[in-house]
């Protein structure tokens, strides 16, 4: 049983391709059903963020599982398989483990060390619990992933002074406007990204900060937190006339602002510059609008220029993180190998239990003991003895199950029963 992953991210595919693969939360159940219909896939997890779409599968047949996953991806994106091949990557076994640890710790992010991905990975595990089969492997993987990610973020400087995607977006807006003081900004959406963006924007002494969202309550809460105003999503036309910076991250499958709308809006605005940071995948704002005079639209991929410096600073820390990644893989492998010994342990216990009943029956018949309570006490006594006797061998068996050394039979007995220590 091993982990395998197939997917695409900001390094392998541009945003216009990635947005075709994005898996919305309302489609997750369907996706999990499709994956888990295959009897060779025991557990599965889907991670879909603005930077990546990845399918994780626990399987004992890579080839078959990968074929199925790539078929599912192909169906979702309605892309030709030959085109798909250019953008997809596949990791199996240890490589897959390292990959998920890198993703969760933010090493694989566009903005290295950004904290949001950790929450997104946790969410993906939770969705797997909710919609898919979440059994021993994913449980252990979740624990180990969180452990490794936390270690990397605490013991290296990867997450020190983190540059978030939202921060990078505001830096881009400053290329157009300089200081954002006395500017009007609008945040479309109320998710984590928007919350961060709103917080960053609020610290820039804006004239007005508007928040709009499909769910009014969410927009209201966010606006309240950042001292902003709520805007009705169905009536943002008037607000857009005075807005300078728009940050958008919704889960809408279609454009919220299309070319025709923006073209007419710009005439009404007398071509006053407007900056859009579209952090959504699929995108919220029609990229064609970038052709309009004084409309500057940036998407998540356009932040690459800003994050280059961030990457250079954190490259040394990535080297340091390697130790934690390897230790995570080692722990997972040790645990996996320990799984092989479990049937042996079960059989051993079963054999002892069966013998216990047989012996109790034999002794009771021999000494004519018919009292039920007496029999119970005898069984309790033998059970306690068995537990005592088996404790050391079973613990040693679990611990040493991945031990590759060769021992003689006598040495094995000594190790298993801990005879050397005595």
């Amino acid at each position: 049983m091993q982990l395998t992953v197939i997917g695409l991210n900001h390094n392998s595919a541009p945003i216009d391709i990635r947005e075709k693969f994005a898996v919305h939360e309302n489609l997750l159940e369907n996706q999990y059903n499709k994956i888990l219909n295959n009897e060779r896939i025991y557990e599965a997890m889907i991670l879909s963020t603005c930077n990546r779409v990845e399918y994780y599968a626990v399987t004992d047949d890579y080839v078959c599982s990968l074929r199925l996953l790539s078929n599912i991806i192909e169906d979702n994106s309605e892309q030709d398989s030959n085109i798909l091949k250019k953008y997809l990557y596949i990791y199996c076994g240890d490589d897959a483990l390292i990959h998920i640890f890198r993703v969760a710790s933010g090493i694989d992010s566009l903005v290295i060390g950004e904290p949001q991905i950790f929450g997104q990975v946790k969410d993906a595990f939770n969705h797997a619990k909710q919609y898919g089969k979440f059994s021993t492997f994913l449980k252990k993987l979740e624990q180990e992933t969180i452990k490794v990610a936390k270690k990397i973020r605490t013991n290296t400087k990867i997450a020190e002074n983190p540059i978030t995607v939202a921060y990078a977006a505001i830096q881009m807006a400053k290329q157009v406007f300089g200081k954002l003081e006395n500017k009007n900004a609008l945040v479309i959406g109320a998710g984590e990204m928007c919350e961060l963006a709103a917080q960053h924007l609020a610290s820039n002494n804006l004239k007005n900060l508007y928040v709009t969202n499909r769910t009014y309550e969410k927009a209201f809460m966010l606006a309240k937190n950042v001292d902003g105003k709520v805007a009705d999503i169905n009536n943002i036309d008037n607000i857009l006339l005075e807005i300078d910076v728009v940050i958008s991250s919704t889960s809408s499958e279609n454009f919220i602002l299309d070319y025709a709308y923006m073209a007419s809006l710009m005439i009404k605005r007398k071509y006053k510059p407007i900056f859009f940071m579209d952090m959504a995948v699929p995108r919220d704002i029609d990229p064609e609008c970038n052709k309009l005079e004084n409309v500057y639209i940036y998407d998540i991929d356009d932040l690459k220029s800003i994050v280059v410096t961030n990457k250079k600073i954190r490259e040394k820390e990535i080297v340091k993180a390697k130790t934690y990644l390897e230790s995570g893989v080692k722990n997972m492998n040790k645990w996996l190998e320990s799984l092989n010994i479990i049937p042996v342990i079960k059989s051993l216990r079963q054999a002892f239990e069966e013998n216990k009943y047989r012996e109790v029956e034999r002794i009771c018949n021999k000494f004519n003991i018919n009292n039920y309570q007496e029999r119970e006490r005898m069984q309790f006594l033998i059970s306690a003895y068995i537990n005592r006797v088996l404790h050391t061998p079973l613990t040693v068996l679990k611990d040493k199950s991945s031990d590759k050394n060769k021992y003689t039979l006598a040495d094995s007995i000594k190790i298993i029963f801990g005879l050397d220590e005595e």
Partner: protein
Amino acid sequence: MLFTYALLFYLLALFCIILYSFINIRFSKNIYTIFVLIGLLLNGAHIVDRWLSTKYFPTTSLSDILIFLCFILISMSIFISINSKKPAMVSITLPFVLILGILSMIFWDKPNVKLYNNTFWLYIHLPSIIIGTAFLISSAFSSVIYLYQEKRLRGKNLNLISEQIPPLEFIDKINIYSLIAGFVLFSIGLLSGIIWDFYEVEPYKIKAKVIFSIITWIIFGLILFLKNKKGLPPGKSALWSVIGFLFIFITYFGVAIFLRDN
């Protein structure tokens, strides 16, 4: 002589900016300001020296006009660059000033405007037209910077040079303020020049210089009108400013021809 030294310092400043902008040699960023300021001081000293020696403000020969234009252009560009903390405006102005400097040396021995014409209207005409022209040139330069940076931002392709350029909104503001100031001064200069020409020099004679000046005035006037009334996009107004600049250039050549003819 003082102006030659000024040009030398302008050249050194340009060299420092090139080192900083293209090779990213950081220390040269701090030095360029010093060189420009020394150059500006020498440029100013030259104008004062000429003023004291000739007893009238030195704007009556093409050479003097060009030197005064250099002084105004550098003053404006250094003011903008210090304010924005980005050397883009000085970078684009310096090569132009060096060309003007060389031209001023070429026209060094050319005759002055005849002093019998040195009346009230001329005193208004010359400073207004020169300072107005400097503002319009500054507006055209900011337009070039705007167009460059806009292209980079739109193409999402920022480079080392882009880092030396102030935010687009700042450049647009410089463009519009220079345009307004330049247009007002140019209008005063043009009007006073026409009156001076009509009453003092050669009435009822249409000259190429005047025609080109009027065309320039119309172009910049149109940009201002469209920008305020119709909301002319900054990109388009920048493009028109550059076209206006070409007409300024032609007008000045016209001046050279005019002076040579006189």
